[in-house]
C-alpha cells in the first residue's frame, strides 16, 4: 500500500480531516459536521474491529474451537455462559422482556464492586495514611525543610477533609478549617492545570507539523488546496448571509 497514489491520497485525506475538525474553532460548519459524523462511524468501527481481532478471535473463538475439537467441555461451557449473558443484554431493545438483561448487568456490577472495594481502600486509604504519617517515624533526623513539609501535608490533608464533611454544619471552627482546606485544593488545581499545558501544546505542534509537511510539493500542496477551499466557502457564506440580512431588514 506504499504506492505513490496512496501517499498523496493519504495526505489529502489526513490534512482534510484535520482542517475540518479545526474549522469548528471558527464556527460550526458543514465540513465539521461531515468530519464529526464520519468520526462517529470510524470511532465505533475501530473499537469493534479491535475487539474482534484482538479480544474475541485470540481469547475466545480460537480456544473455544480448540476445546470443541478435543472435547474439553469445561472450557466450552465457560465460554458459552458469558456469551449467553452477553446476549441477554441485547434484550434491552424489546421492552416486554428487557428485564432479562438484568442477568448480564448484575454479573458485571457484582464483579466490578467486588474488585473495587478492597483495592480502593488499600491504595487510596491505607497507603495515603502511611504517606502522611511515615515522615514522623524518624522526624528528628529529618532536615528542617522536610520537617516543615511533613507538617504541611498533614495539616493540608486534614483541612481538605474538613471541607468535605457532609453531616456537620459548616460554621465556626469547621468553617475556618474547611476554608483553609480550599486553599490546598486551589493549589492542586492550579498546579495540575499548569503542568498539562506543555503536553497539550506538543500535541498541537504535532498536528501543525503534519499540516506544514503535507503543504509541500511532493504532496501536491494538499493542505494549501483544502485551506483555499474552506476560505472560499466561509467568504461565500458571509456574502450570502449579509445579502439575506439586507433583504430582510
Amino acid at each position, binding site marked *: 500500500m*506504499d504506492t505513490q497514489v496512496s501517499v498523496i491520497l493519504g495526505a489529502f485525506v489526513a490534512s482534510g480531516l484535520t482542517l475540518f475538525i479545526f474549522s469548528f474553532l471558527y464556527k460550526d460548519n458543514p465540513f465539521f459536521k461531515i468530519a464529526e459524523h464520519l468520526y462517529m462511524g470510524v470511532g465505533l468501527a475501530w473499537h469493534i474491529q479491535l475487539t474482534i481481532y484482538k479480544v474475541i478471535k485470540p481469547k475466545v473463538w480460537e480456544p473455544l474451537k480448540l476445546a470443541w475439537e478435543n472435547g474439553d467441555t469445561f472450557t466450552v461451557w465457560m465460554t458459552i455462559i458469558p456469551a449467553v449473558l452477553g446476549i441477554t443484554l441485547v434484550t434491552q431493545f424489546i421492552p416486554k422482556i428487557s428485564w432479562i438483561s438484568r442477568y448480564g448487568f448484575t454479573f458485571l456490577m457484582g464483579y466490578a464492586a467486588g474488585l473495587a472495594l478492597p483495592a480502593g481502600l488499600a491504595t487510596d486509604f491505607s497507603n495515603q495514611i502511611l504517606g502522611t504519617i511515615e515522615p514522623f517515624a524518624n522526624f528528628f533526623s529529618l532536615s528542617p525543610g522536610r520537617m516543615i513539609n511533613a507538617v504541611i501535608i498533614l495539616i493540608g490533608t486534614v483541612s481538605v477533609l474538613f471541607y468535605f464533611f457532609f453531616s456537620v454544619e459548616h460554621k465556626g471552627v469547621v468553617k475556618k478549617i474547611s476554608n483553609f482546606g*480550599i486553599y490546598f485544593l486551589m493549589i492542586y488545581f492550579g498546579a495540575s492545570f499548569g503542568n498539562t499545558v506543555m503536553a497539550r501544546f506538543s500535541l498541537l505542534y504535532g498536528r501543525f507539523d503534519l499540516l506544514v509537511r503535507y503543504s509541500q510539493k511532493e504532496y501536491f500542496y494538499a493542505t494549501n488546496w483544502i485551506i483555499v477551499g474552506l476560505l472560499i466557502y466561509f467568504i461565500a457564506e458571509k456574502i450570502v448571509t449579509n445579502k439575506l440580512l439586507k433583504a430582510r431588514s
Partner: protein
Amino acid sequence: MNIIKKYIPLTIVFIFGIITLASYYVPHRASDEYLEWINKWENIVSAFALFLGMISLFYSHYKKIQRKVDGWGYSLFVYIGFFIIMGAAILSEGDISKEGKLTYLGWSFNNIYNPLSATMFSVLAFFIISTAYRSFKIKSFAAFLLFICGLILMIGNIPLGEIIWDKVFGWTKLTIGEIKDWIISVPSTAGRRGIMIGIAIGAAVTSLKIIFGIERGYMGKE
C-alpha cells in the same frame, strides 16, 4: 415471577461481589484462575455491548434519514465512516502492517482514525488558553493561589521560563524548578490526597450498596 425478575439477579450481584472480594485475600492459584475466567467473561459480555452499540447507532441514524430530520444528509457519513474502517479491517485481518508494508487498515489508521483523534485531542490546547484567560482571575485569595501555581508551573516547564526567572528573581537563589517541584510534592499532594481519601471511602460505600442490593437504580424500578 418476581423471583426470576428481581431476586435471582440480586443474588447474582451478591455472589459475584463476595467471591471477587474474597479473591483479593486468597493467594492460591485458584483465585488467579477465577479472576482470569471472569476477565474473559467480561470481555465477551462487553463485546456484545459494542454489538448493541452498533445496532443503536445504525437504528438512530436510520430513523434520522427516514424521517428526513434536518441535517439527515450527514447521517450518511456515519455509515460511510463505519464501513470504510470495517472493510479495511476485514481485508487486513486486523493487522496494521504485514512484513513492514502498510495494510489498508494501517493506511486508514494513519490517514483517517489518527488525524481525527489526534486533532480532536490537540483542540485542547486552544481550550486551555481560552479557559485560562477567562478563569485565572484574581477575585479572592483562593483564586490567587490557583493563578500563581498555574503560572509557576507553566513558567517552570519551558527553557525560556528558566532564563526569565533567573533575570527577575535571581536574587532569591531559588530556581523555578525547585519551587515547581515543591508545589507539586507538598501542598498539591495534600490537596489531592484529601480528594482521594473521600473518593476511596465513597467508592467503598457504593460498592457495599451494590453488593447488598441497596443500590438498585441500575436495574430500573419494577
